[in-house]
């Protein structure tokens, strides 16, 4: 690993020296908006409204409607739609009403008299517990394909659950009833859907989470942190309480014992991808945001960045790969949303946890410049390695040389203590790299794959046909399952 690190350092240094090398801003441009002077616009949720408008929910409990955010940033207009709410961590527009997920409830907000401000705050459900601990956030989604809205509830702090359903995901049915859906939530940072409408949330490093994670929510599952198990007593629809996971074990081992346990789709590798995963946005713009259609974009509050995730399903389990995508947001992103034109809106705040962006809060827009970066497009697990596709044709000489790649595999301790180091290192050898007939894919054969491990792949030697290096030459694939074929 030492050798690998120093090689990387050399490469990084070389990249800095070579000024002509492509950079993120050649492909994606960040626009930072001025925000209303009278408030700290700590954006924690974003929703699209009819007429090209946006709604921004904030940690200070305000909702601002924004016009013109798709165009010239100097012409953006803000209007205060609602205030006095308790931390708005989810917004959903439906049938002329805006639904907010706050600390205590999901409520339907409507402007009945047409003055641009909400006058109806009708509670949809408030049937979960809040004990007064600052961590007890509630994150909400938009409405899913069944018309349900999902809520994830942070534990009371990191370890335990003091009051009803802290540490659970719940579904709000159209009639307002609240159905327990998943146990095992620790500290959510964002929620979202994939292109097929499946529900995901991000969780944060801490007990039972060696790193931040992207997780797939399906009813009846246990998502990893047993701190909220006692609420099985109040959730008969969930069946019996699962067996407790063993402390200081491994996720892959405990999956064998705890049948309800679902492994994270992707580990957002700590310190490398980020430290505090937040929003999840799926690119449904049909190519207007660049070549990564239907992939997920996951932000990190602490690193002020956005990463890119490709998900596949193997043996009925979601798993996938995360790549660095875009650095340089100005604060700690929390809320995100993409419009049909492929403009990604992001907003956030550094309050309480810090963010490398440096500003206390921000509202920003990411636009694709129209240039296609040379990147790994998708990465799929194979019985003996991986198949990777690229956004641009590759240089066959470098792409077919195993020496252009370096691999490492590791995992985290699955434990009740806070976080985990990277453990159980395996250094697989890449035995072959075969470029596909389309010149845009490479089939890599590994001498070994380790089930449950994160497979870290560096592609520093690979060049595009045009001679460019891979813009982000690293991938972290969470290999929950090894496919049979």
């Amino acid at each position, binding site marked *: 690993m030492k050798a690998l*690190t120093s090689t990387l350092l050399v490469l990084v240094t070389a990249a800095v020296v070579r000024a002509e090398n492509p950079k993120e801003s050649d492909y994606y441009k960040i626009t930072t908006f001025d925000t209303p002077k009278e408030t*700290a616009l700590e954006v924690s949720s974003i929703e699209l409204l009819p007429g090209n408008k946006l709604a921004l929910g904030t*940690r*200070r*409990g305000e909702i601002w409607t924004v016009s013109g955010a798709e165009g010239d940033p100097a012409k953006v207009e803000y209007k205060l739609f609602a*205030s*006095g*709410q*308790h*931390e708005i961590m989810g917004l959903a527009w439906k049938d002329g009403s805006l639904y907010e997920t*706050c*600390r*205590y*409830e999901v*409520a*339907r907000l409507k402007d009945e*008299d047409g003055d641009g*401000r*909400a*006058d*109806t*705050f*009708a*509670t949809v459900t*408030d*049937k979960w*517990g*809040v*004990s*007064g*601990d*600052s*961590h007890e956030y509630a994150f909400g989604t938009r409405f899913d394909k069944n018309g349900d809205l999902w809520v994830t509830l942070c534990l009371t*702090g*990191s*370890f335990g659950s003091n*009051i009803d359903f802290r540490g659970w995901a719940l579904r709000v049915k159209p009639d307002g009833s609240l159905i327990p859906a998943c146990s095992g939530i620790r500290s959510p940072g964002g929620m979202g859907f994939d292109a097929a409408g499946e529900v995901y949330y991000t969780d944060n490093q*801490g007990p039972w989470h060696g790193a931040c994670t992207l997780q797939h929510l399906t009813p009846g599952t246990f998502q990893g942190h047993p701190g909220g198990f006692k609420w099985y007593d109040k959730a008969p629809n969930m069946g019996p309480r699962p067996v407790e996971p063993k402390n200081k074990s491994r996720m892959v081992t405990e999956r064998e014992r705890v049948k309800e346990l679902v492994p994270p789709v992707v580990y957002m590798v*700590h*310190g*490398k991808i980020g*430290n*505090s995963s937040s929003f999840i946005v799926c690119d449904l713009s049909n190519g207007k945001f660049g070549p990564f259609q239907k992939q997920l974009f996951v932000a990190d509050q*602490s690193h002020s960045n956005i990463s890119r995730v490709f998900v596949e399903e193997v043996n009925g389990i979601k798993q996938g790969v995360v790549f660095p995508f875009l650095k340089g947001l100005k604060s700690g992103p929390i809320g995100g949303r993409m419009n049909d034109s492929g403009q990604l809106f992001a907003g956030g705040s*550094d*309050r*309480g*946890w*810090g*963010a*490398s962006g440096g500003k206390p809060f921000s509202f920003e827009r990411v636009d694709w410049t129209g240039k296609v970066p040379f990147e790994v497009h998708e990465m799929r697990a194979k019985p003996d390695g991986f198949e990777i596709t690229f956004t641009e044709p590759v240089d066959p000489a470098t792409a077919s040389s195993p020496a252009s790649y370096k691999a490492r595999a590791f995992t985290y301790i699955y434990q009740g*203590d*806070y*976080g985990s*180091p*990277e453990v159980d290192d395996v250094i697989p050898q890449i035995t072959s790299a075969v470029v596909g007939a389309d010149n845009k894919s490479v089939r890599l054969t590994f001498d070994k794959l380790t089930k449950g491990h994160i497979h870290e792949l560096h592609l520093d030697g690979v060049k595009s046909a045009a001679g460019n290096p891979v813009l982000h030459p690293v991938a972290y694939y969470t290999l929950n399952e090894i496919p049979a074929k």
Partner: protein
Amino acid sequence: MFRSTFLLLAALFTARGIAAEPLVINIKTIPAKMLYDVTDFTVKPGAEVKLVFENLDDMPHNWVLFEPGVDVVALANKNVEDPEAVKRDFLPLDKRVLAHSKAVPPKAREEILFKAPAKVGVYPFVCTFPGHAAIMQGKMRVSLAPPGLTGLKFALYLGSWQKLPDFAALKPHREGEVPDGLIQIKLDDYKNQFGIVYSGKLSAPKEGDYTFSLAGDDGVRLLIDGKRVVEHDGVHGSGEIKEGKIKLTAGEHEVRLEYFQGTGEAEIYVAWKGADFPNTALSKWVHPEAAVGGKKKKGNSRTGIPLAVGTEPVLYRNFIANAGGRPIGVGYPGGFNLAWSAAQMNLALVWRGEFIDAALHWIDRGGGEQPPLGEDQVRPVGDSSVPFAVLANPETEWPKTDKNQLAAGYDWKGYTLDAKRFPTFAYEWSGLKITDRFDTAGQAATGGTLLRTLQLVGTIPANAYFRVASGNIQPTDAGYTVEGALNVAVAGAKVVGRNLLVPAQAEIKITYSWPTKAEPVQ
């Protein structure tokens, strides 16, 4: 770093036997705040320091001391970018690190011994865990300042005052020693309506003029050898620092600090400076204005974002002290304020004057309960409880509720805002659809009234009562007073024990006002 720690320890052990007991500095992390409780302390050049670092938070933290002038935030951020940093528990490999703890897990503690640098200056310390440094930091001052207060004792008094009372004429509720030799308020669980007299000794290094700084919320007075040096009496915030000078002879002097707390915020800051040493705090809380270089300290301030009420009501849904579960604070024009509980579906707290300060919730992570800003707070029904109950007879005990639980049988439906942006709260109980709203007349400060209207739609159950008030209820010409602090008028009510009850009916109208204040006795 291990090497330099070893050297420091070796130096210390060599000196053992002749060295004085090390100076003990206790630093704790504040749960869920990502802050140290002590962010500023002073040691003498070359002093042996025993730092007891206790982590009360639920995530690991460390304590790393740097040389003066190091941009600790930039350094910590850069450190995190090193992929190997996680294996070092995020301890930076930097020769400017002077002393450090290990990564201290939640609820654990560590003691470290080190020798303070010989050079006078301000030495930053910080937690180098990812993202923590931006706020989790403090300063160790190496200064020639003399030792602080010795033999510091306190006497706690209970009472409600507008000005500092004659404590000598009062009987203390409790007496004891003050830890750490630093003036501090949190010596007991009392948050409101108490007074403290601190007494101790201060040693002046030589004869000369000394300047004492003092700030308090509320009234404070500092006496040395029985002479008043500086005071700031009355009810006020802690923003203003007052100064007073006194000539002292070399040697020990008696220090007496008198303080009282009305309601709301509570702080004391006291510091002194002499010809040979800079301004040095004698209190645990260091006033932000007193920070070195006059730079405002970023941190756990609980004031600074007051929510001003203009021509429309202002709503604030957050953790409000003494306001039941899920309170909705409403500041109305005219100086009327209330908190209505969306867990117990009832008016929980009324007060007048200023509305509330959001700083506790809008700075840092936002935990904790914030008391209102204004005055004359009253809880009309005492501990939060439900508005309606079916009672076999009126003497039956009113149902009790846990403020964090949703009241059984009640269903919160939300609220609407009218054209004036006044809220009407809605809920259901016993098949009834109930609304609850408040209007105002006049100014709260000058006899104005708060008019409450409850409307019940549906079939009202037999023996259903609405509890208007609870506590010490006395009849007056116009209605009743509750705890001598709030006037209540309602038709058809009767006092039953400590409750003021009215039969549930389609419309219930209640008028609240504050009694005219008697002039404070001098």
